[in-house]
Every structure is written in C-alpha cells, then in structure tokens.
C-alpha cells in the first residue's frame, strides 16, 4: 500500500497536486474543532469587514467570522460527501460482485434495476424529497437518499471486472477448495476491485457535494446547517456581490473549486494507475 503511494507521488504530478489540495482542505476543515465561535450564532462580530489580520477571510453581513464559519461548512460538506461515498460504495460493491460472480438470472435481475436507476434523473427526485420533508431533510437523510441513487454506474464497472475474475484460475481453485460464493467474492475478488472503488469514490464525492451545493444554493436543504452550499445561499440572500461584500462569495467558491479539483485529480490519477499500460508509459519503461 505504501509503495503504491510512493510510486504515485514520484511519477504522477497530478496525484501530488491532488493530495496537496485535498490535504489543505481537510486540514482547514479540521480547524473547526478548535473554533472559538458557535457556527449557528449570528451577529457575534462586526458585519461586512473585508479580509484583514484580525478576520482572515473577513466577516459576512450576518456578523459571522467567515474563517471559522467556513471551517464548519467544509467539515460538514466533506463529511457529507464521505458518507454518501461509503454508503453507495457498499451498495455498488455488493451488487457488482454478486451480479458478476453469480451471473444468470441474478445478474439479469440486478442489472435490470441497475439500468432503471441509471436512467432516473436524480435532481427532480431530490427536490421532491425536500418538498415533502422540508426542514426535516437533514444531512444524514439527504446522504442516505443520495447513496440510494449514486451506485449504479460503479456497480456496472465492478461487475465487468468481476466477470473477468470469475474465469481466472484462482477462482476455480477457491471453488474446489470449498469456499462459499460469499467468501470468494469478499476475500478473493474484492481486493481486485479496490482500486476502482477508491477512484470511483472520489468521483462520487464530487457528484454528491456538487448536488448538495446546488440544492442548498436554491434553498432546498436545511439552511441553518453550515455547509458550502448554505454559505453561498446566505451570501446570495444578502446580495453579497451587489453590495460589494465580494469575499463572502469569492472565498468559498475558491475553496470549493480547490476541493473539486483535488478530488478530481486523485480520481484521474488513480484511474490511470489501474491501467498498467498507461502506468508503465508514465514511469518511462
């Protein structure tokens, strides 16, 4: 595991940039644990102060110190993305490995549902959920709903790998040794799909955080929980750009773009690493 990491750092500049960007954002969000202010309280400082030595990121029109406010926002957003990624990975691994290994009717049934889920546009459905749940739609429920829609692409990908593994020698050995299908899937096949799981997890985080930001910007989540989306929502609500409080919008946007770029570069470089041909080309062999 460590040697893979070392190779990636040495030969893959995209991976290094990705690690640095995501690392900076994660460190920034961890600062929230040392925060001196309550993120839900408003009018605790002077409103509308530009970035200065005292307020690094300035303060917003609601009298909140943007620096600490954004540490909480990023902690919640990253945690949200991670939850969706983990939950949807569990579904996609289970469905993908089962469909690929068992084949036959199981495969056809699972892929039938898979194709249905791919075709359903999620955004109107999410808005429908907000419409029904209103402010009861907290981060965990939203994460659960999105995990239920975020697995089909990756399940198909995992299935295609599992299909290939099924006919390999070691699978037959395992069958003759009397391993149950469940154990073969989880002990023999799972390690082979792990790289795909990691790289799709990054892509999935970009997807889920992007949707969360969009929903929140429209005001369709619980706007009192600090996230990147709600930070932008409040900025729009107070017409920050028009009244000249540009830092309220520019700083979160720059940070979220850094997050997306970092995650994207990690996903791309891992994807490239999975393919031995492009890995060798890069290492100059």
């Amino acid at each position: 595991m460590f040697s893979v990491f070392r190779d990636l750092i040495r030969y893959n500049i995209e991976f290094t940039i990705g690690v640095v960007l995501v690392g900076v954002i994660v460190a920034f969000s961890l600062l929230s644990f040392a925060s001196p202010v309550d993120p839900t309280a408003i009018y605790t400082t002077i409103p509308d102060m530009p970035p200065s030595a005292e307020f690094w990121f300035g303060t917003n029109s609601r009298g909140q110190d943007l620096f600490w406010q954004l540490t909480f926002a990023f902690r919640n957003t990253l945690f949200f993305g991670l939850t969706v990624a983990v939950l949807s990975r569990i579904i996609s691994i289970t469905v993908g490995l089962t469909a690929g290994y068992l084949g036959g009717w199981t495969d056809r049934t699972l892929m039938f549902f898979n194709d249905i889920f791919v075709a359903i546009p999620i955004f109107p459905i999410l808005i429908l959920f907000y419409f029904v749940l209103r402010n009861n739609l907290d981060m965990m429920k939203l994460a659960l709903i999105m995990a239920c829609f975020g697995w089909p692409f990756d399940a198909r990908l995992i299935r295609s790998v599992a299909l290939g593994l099924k006919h390999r020698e070691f699978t037959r050995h395992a069958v003759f040794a009397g391993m149950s299908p469940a154990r073969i899937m989880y002990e023999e096949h799972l390690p082979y799909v792990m790289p795909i799981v990691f790289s799709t997890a990054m892509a999935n985080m970009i997807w889920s955080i992007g949707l969360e930001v969009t929903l929140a910007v429209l005001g369709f989540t619980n706007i009192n929980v600090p996230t990147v989306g709600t930070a932008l929502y409040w900025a729009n609500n107070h017409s920050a750009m028009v009244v000249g409080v540009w830092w309220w919008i520019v700083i979160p946007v720059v940070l979220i773009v850094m997050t997306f770029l970092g995650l994207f570069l990690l996903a791309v470089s891992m994807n490239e690493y999975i393919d031995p041909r492009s890995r060798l080309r890069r290492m100059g062999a």
Partner: protein
Amino acid sequence: MKDYLTFALKRFLQLLAVVFTGISVAFFVSYLSPISPVETIIGRVAGQSAYSPEAIESLRQTLTELFGLNVPLHERYFNFLGRFLVGDLGPSLLAFPTPAMKLVMLALPWTVGLLTVSTILTWLIGNILGGLAGYYQNSRLLKAFGVVAIGIQPIPYYIVAFLMVIIFGFLWPVLPISGGFSMNVRPSWSPEFAVSILRHAILPAASLVIVGLGTWFLGMRALVSNIVTEDYVTYAELAGVKRERIVSSYVIRNAIVPQLTALAMALGGIFSGTIITEQVFSYPGLGTLLVRAVNAGDSAVVLAVSCIAVIAVATAIFLIDLLHPLLDPRIKAE
C-alpha cells in the same frame, strides 16, 4: 433487421419499466407531503372575505373530490396511473385552476430546446477536440486546452453559471442575463423574436457547454491515446493512409461508440444542470417552474415536472441506445 427490431422492442419494454418505476417513486414520495392542497386553497379563498362555515365545508368536499383525495391510497395510485396515461395530473396551485400539465407543457419547449442544442454542441466539440488531442499529442495548443479542461471540469454548474452572470451582467454587460426573450418583443413568428430568443439563450447555453466540454474532451483524449497504440493504426500509417483519414475514420470512429454510451448515461446529470442554469438565468423552462412550484407548495406541478423529467430523460437514453447498433456493427443487438 429482425434482430434489430427485437432489440428495439426489448429496449422499449425497458423504457416502459424505467418510466413506470420513476413516476411511481415520484407519486409515493409526493404522497408523503404534509401540505394539503385543499386546505391551501381554502385558506386562500377564506382569506379574501367572510364565508359561512357550511359554504367552506361544501367547498372542502368539492375540492377533496377534485383532487381525488377521498379514496384510499392504492386507489389513488391507480387513479394517478390511469390519469397519467391521458396526461392529466390535476389542477395546479400556482395558477389554480390551470391544469398542472398545461404549465409543464408551456415550460417544456424552452428546456428541451436549450438542452438539445447545448448537449449536441458540447458533445461534438468535446469529442472532436479530444480526439485531435489524443492523436496529435505534441500540439501545444491542444495540451493547453487539456490543462484548462482539467481545471474547469470539476466545477459545479451553479458556480460557472454564477460567474457568467457576474462577468456579463456587472463587469461587461453585453448580453441579457435573465429571461427567455425581451420584455418589449411580442412572441410571434418574427425575426425580432427569434433574435431575442437566441440572444437570451447564449449565456445559459454557453455555461452548459463550458461545464460539459471538459468531461468529453478528457474522456475522448484518454480513449484515443489508447487506440493510437493499436496495431491497425500503425499499419494504416505504414500503408500511407492520409493522416486526416486515420484520425476521422480509423481512430475517432472507433472511440465514438463508448462516448455515445457515456452520453446516454450522463443525460440525467445534464438535466440537473439545466435546472440550475435556468434558475440562475431566470430562463422560463422546467427548472424555474419546478423551483417556483416547490416554494409555493404546489405538489401537482412538482409531481408533473418530476414525471415529465423522468420520461424525457429515459426517452432520450432510449433513442441514443437505438442509434448504437447502427454506429457499431460489432454490437449484434443482443
């Protein structure tokens, strides 16, 4: 030919299954809604002047019947499916008593037009540039474009659209940033109206193209840079086939098939993007209607928009899948 028809029929059955599942999910989710349309309308009516309690009670009964709320859930579900087939989803609240479906049908052409044009443009430009970048790997210009694409690709729709509003609305106001056409132009088949529509569509469409371009560019470049190492490309080069011909009919032709599959799979996401874009640019399409309906608590319109969205996206995927065997003769319509 017979094979192709069986394939088309199978895919059509799948389309029906997708639509059925989608609208059922939408129905059951909206059933949980705590907002009663009957009480909302009664509140609106009773707020305007005083009525006798009997009049209110009879109004309540009439409205309950009008919305079909006086029967148990399973019956409501079958009623919903039956009425859905004839395109009737009940009256809207936004503009009571206009049918919800009529509002949706007024908004639909805007979204479909914007989405079709921008998706086709994005897909073509991204794939052609990506294909060239994969084949001519030493071109400085295309390399620079690749870096820009990597930078822009992960930014969400909302932020790009918002930046465009700031740039073209405040810093350099040359294009209209809101609405579908100018206030002072009458909707008709006239050149002024067409120009007005086009001018208003430029920014929303451009934001969709900018965000989408990177994905197709990067995907195509990766595919092509794998294909150029294949033996048949080397052979064609050795045999002296013209370079342009190799790029277009040997390399891009082969890479276009997985990209078409990817387009079918990405349509749902592109549709979500349109909703945001419309909202940011106040474009009079489905997205704006959906947001207005949610804010007004209009469940009929929300349900109608969701159902139409499911049908539209599923149908588009179906059409793309039908193209598939025609483009790739290797796929023998399973």
